[in-house]
């Protein structure tokens, strides 16, 4: 029987030995012949040429998320506003009409319909920003982490007047194998912001929530409640200076009220919560996914005076299911949730093209709440793959959803 107190090094060494042996198995002798036969028999006109009927311009990116995908929802519905290249974008924040910031492996800005432009791509090497919150158009915070190989460091950037700079984060261990990371940030005022994320130990059993507060002078880690097992926090939002919510995997919901964070329980199915937004103190939405790994379905939970409860989400009645990663509301009766439908063979029940022959392209998923319930929105039929990870709506009611084109997109 293995030693239950096996060290991290022993466990990882055993794992590597296992994988080395497992992977030593050669493929069947006819694999290459089968590939050549299969490829030559399945060639044909490209999907874009077929769907669009034109000599479409295709952009191909080398890796997932290489193309930045911006979707804009105005009075005419969703459309692709821009599909640039060179960065990944994970989150967006809008504070007034047509004034939005997006972050990821760069910081980008859009103002007054002028189009998205890279403001700063000088993040520290290995750095990525996972969340952004703007108090005004010219005062923002962005958070994430810098991957240093055998450990990570928290990354916080402050934008003032369009100029961004790295600021000192809360003191955290930088020991090898320690991986603290911020996932989300929200601000009530310019001097009252919260950031949440996780701390993880490579080889260790527990991913633990991380909460930090900025009260005008410096960021500091705040003690949160003890949780059972493993889990971090992926999103945070505040209704007011003393009323905030944070969510994470395993339906973890934490509430800041009365000066401390406590774990709240949710009635309903368990799942991963990826985003949260509040319209009022007694009206919030949290979205994510539920299901055992490979059979995910979107998960939507609502907070009311009765507490958190799962509400019906449109069932994705096609293989592979789907997940939601962002949510934003324009009004109590108009909210949007965005995410993706992983894998090929996915056909949205509405107007998105069937991608059954197009490779492992993930499709954007857009759901809308219009007072009566959530429905799948047709989104944009011209999108050829992509995943949406963040959404924000400005004061005019227009929304931006951001993410990555996983393989290709029209331009």
């Amino acid at each position, binding site marked *: *029987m*293995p030693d239950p107190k096996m060290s*991290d090094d022993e*466990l990882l060494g055993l*794992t*590597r*030995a*296992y*994988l080395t042996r*497992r*992977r030593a*198995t*050669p*493929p069947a002798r006819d*694999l*290459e012949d089968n*590939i*050549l036969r*299969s*490829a030559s028999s*399945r*060639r044909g*006109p*490209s999907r874009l*040429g077929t769907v669009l009927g034109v*000599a479409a*311009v*295709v*952009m191909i*990116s*080398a*890796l*997932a*998320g290489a193309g930045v995908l911006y979707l804009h929802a105005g009075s005419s519905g969703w459309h692709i506003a821009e599909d640039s*290249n*060179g960065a990944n974008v994970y989150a967006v924040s809008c504070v007034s009409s047509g004034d939005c910031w997006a972050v990821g492996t760069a910081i980008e800005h859009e103002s007054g319909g002028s189009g998205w432009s890279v403001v700063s791509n000088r993040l520290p090497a*290995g750095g*990525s920003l*996972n969340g952004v919150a703007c108090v005004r158009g010219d005062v923002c915070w962005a958070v994430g982490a810098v*991957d240093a190989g055998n450990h*990570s460091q928290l990354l916080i950037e402050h934008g003032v007047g369009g100029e961004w700079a790295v600021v000192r984060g809360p003191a955290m261990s930088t020991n090898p194998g320690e*991986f603290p*990371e911020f996932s989300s940030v929200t601000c009530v005022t310019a001097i009252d912001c919260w950031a949440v994320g996780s701390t*993880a130990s490579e080889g*260790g*059993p*527990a*991913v633990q929530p991380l909460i930090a507060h900025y009260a005008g002078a410096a960021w500091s880690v705040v003690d949160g409640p003890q949780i059972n097992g*493993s889990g*971090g926090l992926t999103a945070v939002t505040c209704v007011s200076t003393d009323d905030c919510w944070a969510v994470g995997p395993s339906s973890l919901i934490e509430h800041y009220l009365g000066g401390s964070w406590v774990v709240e329980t949710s009635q309903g199915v368990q799942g991963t919560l990826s985003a949260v937004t509040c319209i009022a103190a007694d009206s919030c939405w949290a979205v994510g996914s539920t299901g*055992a*790994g*490979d*059979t995910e379905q979107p998960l939507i939970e609502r907070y009311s005076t009765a507490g958190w409860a799962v509400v019906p989400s449109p069932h994705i009645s096609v*293989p*592979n*299911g789907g997940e939601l990663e962002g949510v934003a509301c324009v009004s109590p009766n108009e909210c949007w949730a965005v995410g993706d439908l992983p*894998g090929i063979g996915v056909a949205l029940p509405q107007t998105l093209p069937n991608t059954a022959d197009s490779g*492992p392209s993930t499709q954007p998923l857009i759901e809308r709440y219009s007072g009566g319930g959530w429905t799948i929105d047709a989104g944009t039929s011209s999108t050829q793959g992509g995943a949406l*990870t963040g959404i924000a709506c400005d004061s005019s009611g227009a929304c931006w959803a951001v993410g990555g084109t996983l393989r290709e997109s029209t331009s």
Partner: protein
Amino acid sequence: MSLSIVAMSVQSGAENRPNEIDFERLVDAEAGRLYRLALAIVDDPTEAEDAVQETMVIAWRRWSSLQDVSNTSAWLTRVCVRECIRQRRWLRRRPVGTGGSSFEQGQFQFPDVGERLMDLHRAYQHLSARQRAMVTLHHHDGFTVDECAAFLGCRPGTARSHLGRAVAKLRKELADA
């Protein structure tokens, strides 16, 4: 491995057909590597071959564009990893008994498997496809978490969460063995 990002414009149409000799060279150079990666994720030789086959079909279709991708291996790795994950989603819906581990079926037994490796193998069966992908890409192949996240198409934090849970699950299953 660098995470170079390359974009190019091509005109869709017949001129995109690959040179078959060049394509055969690519298959010869990459099929074995991709198969071993896929096998570590899906843990089934037939599924692994299917994943590699689909990956190379996509490479065939995107041949002209692929010629200008600076890191073809990274591109193929990403497509293969996501194809493995997609396949596992489908296979979850199959009746019990139609898949399973070839390792335990005796088709690919290691000649000198020790008890600890066998226990590790059983523990490995409890990992999801994403967790297996993270363990093999990060701990075996040495890719950074950011690179793994790009392969899986998720945020680095999500990738790290998959990794942390995978190791925790391996530890738990080994302790229960």
